[in-house]
């Protein structure tokens, strides 16, 4: 089985040649519920380096958020169980660390931005208080210094008149401003890695552009790693360095951003790209991937995508395709990736 391992790639093969900041390695997670066992994550591997943006794409229910929750240690356990794999931060497996060690990384070195800023902020405390609390609790700052630091952060995320608004409550801010406050909180303790789960889905395009530009700029300034989970392929094209595509709890394709858009090597990715409506012309019928997402309690044997795949052959129903290495940093979990790449439909 060929797997892509960025650590072993040849010397001087690009900016990401340094050891990755975070590596998810063959992760398995399942949910044990009354109805049965849902195999949500079935061997996910990806990595991200300092200063790099990894975009995670994939169908609704494919496990993007569960992977992120496992990294952050906020998975619902039970019913969730981690049944295999490692999550290495600077080469050290977080799943084997002591609680104390882990606590120092999660929330401080790695922080997370959620989709819904209003529910992630506490409605009964002022925004300034919630920001300041990060500094008093984790940095042992005095209340007064923490407040000054909060105003500085609000300034940095472009909240107008931050000094006057520091005592306002979350509901007094617009959706875009609340999302910027979430970014401020995520940045407060100078993390090395940020995980953003659909940070702009609830926002309209003008505010979305502001938020993404801000995030990208701060990431550059601070050389942070960024894992961006989204289904907006426009946002991905704008900011990502590389992409991992998920389907049924696996990575089915992984590639640098340009190569993936130009020449997808997995039928699911190809279908996804063909489904996008375009701003610059009015097409006829939109392409849609046929069929339904898999039931995680009964994932199809062989390749999980086979019942919906126009390229499927007999072997797809019996053998799980490994992630074939196509070139450095590029892989496809499809038996027929070469055919897909050439663009001919088989079968």
């Amino acid at each position, binding site marked *: 089985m060929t797997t892509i391992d960025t650590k072993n790639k040849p010397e001087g093969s690009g900016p990401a040649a340094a050891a990755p900041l975070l590596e998810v390695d063959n992760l398995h997670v399942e949910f044990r519920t009354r109805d049965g066992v849902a195999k949500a994550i079935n061997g996910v591997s990806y990595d991200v380096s300092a200063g790099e943006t990894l975009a995670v794409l994939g169908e609704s229910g494919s496990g993007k958020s569960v992977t992120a929750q496992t990294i952050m240690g906020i998975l619902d356990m039970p019913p969730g169980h981690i049944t295999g794999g490692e999550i290495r931060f600077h080469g050290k497996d977080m799943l084997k660390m002591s609680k104390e060690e882990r606590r120092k990384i999660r929330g401080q070195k790695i922080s997370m931005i959620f989709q819904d800023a209003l529910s992630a902020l506490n409605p009964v405390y002022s925004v300034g208080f919630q920001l300041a609390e990060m500094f008093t609790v984790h940095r042992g700052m005095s209340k007064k210094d923490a407040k000054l630091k909060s105003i500085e952060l609000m300034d940095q995320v472009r909240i107008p008149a931050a000094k006057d608004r520091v005592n306002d409550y979350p509901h007094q801010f617009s*959706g875009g401003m609340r999302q910027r406050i979430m970014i401020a909180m995520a940045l407060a303790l100078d993390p090395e890695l940020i995980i953003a789960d659909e940070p702009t889905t609830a926002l309209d395009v003008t505010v979305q552009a502001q938020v993404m530009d801000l995030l990208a700029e701060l990431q550059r300034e601070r050389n942070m790693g960024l894992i961006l989970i989204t*289904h907006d392929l426009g946002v991905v094209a704008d900011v990502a360095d590389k992409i991992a595509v998920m389907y049924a709890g696996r990575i089915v394709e992984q590639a640098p951003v*340009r190569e993936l*858009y130009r020449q997808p090597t997995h039928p699911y990715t190809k279908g996804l790209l063909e489904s996008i409506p375009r701003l610059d012309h009015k097409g006829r019928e939109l392409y849609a991937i046929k069929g339904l997402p898999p039931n995680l309690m009964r994932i199809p044997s062989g390749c999980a995508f086979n019942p919906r795949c126009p390229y499927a052959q007999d072997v797809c129903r019996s053998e799980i395709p490994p992630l074939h290495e196509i070139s450095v940093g590029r892989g496809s979990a499809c038996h027929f990736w070469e055919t897909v790449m050439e663009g001919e439909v088989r079968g």
Partner: protein
Amino acid sequence: MAESPNGATSADPRKIVKPVAQGEPILQVRGLVKHFPITQGILFQKKIGAVKAVDGVTFDLMKGETLGLVGESGCGKSTVARLLMNLESITAGSVLYKGDDLAKLSGRALKAVRRNIQMVFQDPYTSLNPRMTVADIIGEPYDIHPEVAPRGDRKRRVQELLELVGLNPEHINRYPHQFSGGQRQRIGIARGLALNPEIIIADEPVSALDVSVQAQVVNLLEKLQNELGLSYLFIAHDLSVVRHISDRVAVMYLGRIAEIGTDAQIYDHPTHPYTQALLSAVPVPDPDGREHRERIILTGDVPSPANPPSGCRFRTRCWKAQDICAEQEPLLEIRKGLSGLGAHDSACHFAEEKDIVGAA
């Protein structure tokens, strides 16, 4: 009011209201206003102001067309939808259905009109009651309008509807949680179609779906339009989806329409600075485009609808604003000097074309 003699017993509500030819206005919205009062005090509520959510909106919806409605969060799109559905009371202005003012209709005539305007909601996860089966959810409108499907006929009707939207008719007794997001949105659409409406108001019907599921739902809506001659008011914040599905597009800003025209007029020949900024902000799914695009980033936040700026409402964020913009409200009209596709209604004193999308 032309009611056919057999109107009340007909299964098809379209037969009891007068017909409108393809391309004629079926809905005329004139100077629509909705102000939500801001009150103070616990014992004696005192009105201290108003949120001007919708503040003078005028447009036509033609028979068989799709009118897209776009604009920033909070600009009043959903409020327009709710006013058209009679879920909110109108503060001022009027809505004409086939030439008849809805405010002047009552009794059976009003009920017939209501039946002809249905809504599909944004969120497939919360808009369906989790304790009701699919049969109950889709069949619920028949409780209010039993004349459309007599009791004994309901199950068959619901199954027909399920088939029409591409769901398995055998799943009639399942509950919402047993369906995926895209399937749930189809259930919402089936429910919207239950009473054979002529007009569907769809408020962000695909926003919560991933692109492949979104494509399935958009295709379904277009297929149903072709088969049933439906008119759609399609509200969304994804401008690419709106272009794909719409014949005409209206751009709203802070309770008013900034610009309205055909999809080519709005997307290829926008003349209002707000539309231009909105289009320039759309991320393009092509990594090679990212260095070459000119993006108009708007500074400042949207002003409060309780206290909108004088004159042009966009002036606090507009890079072209002059003194006149604060003094005089720009009318929604075709400005002199514009020709070709640039000549369409735009509420800007200095309306001029700027190629945004093609420049990418």
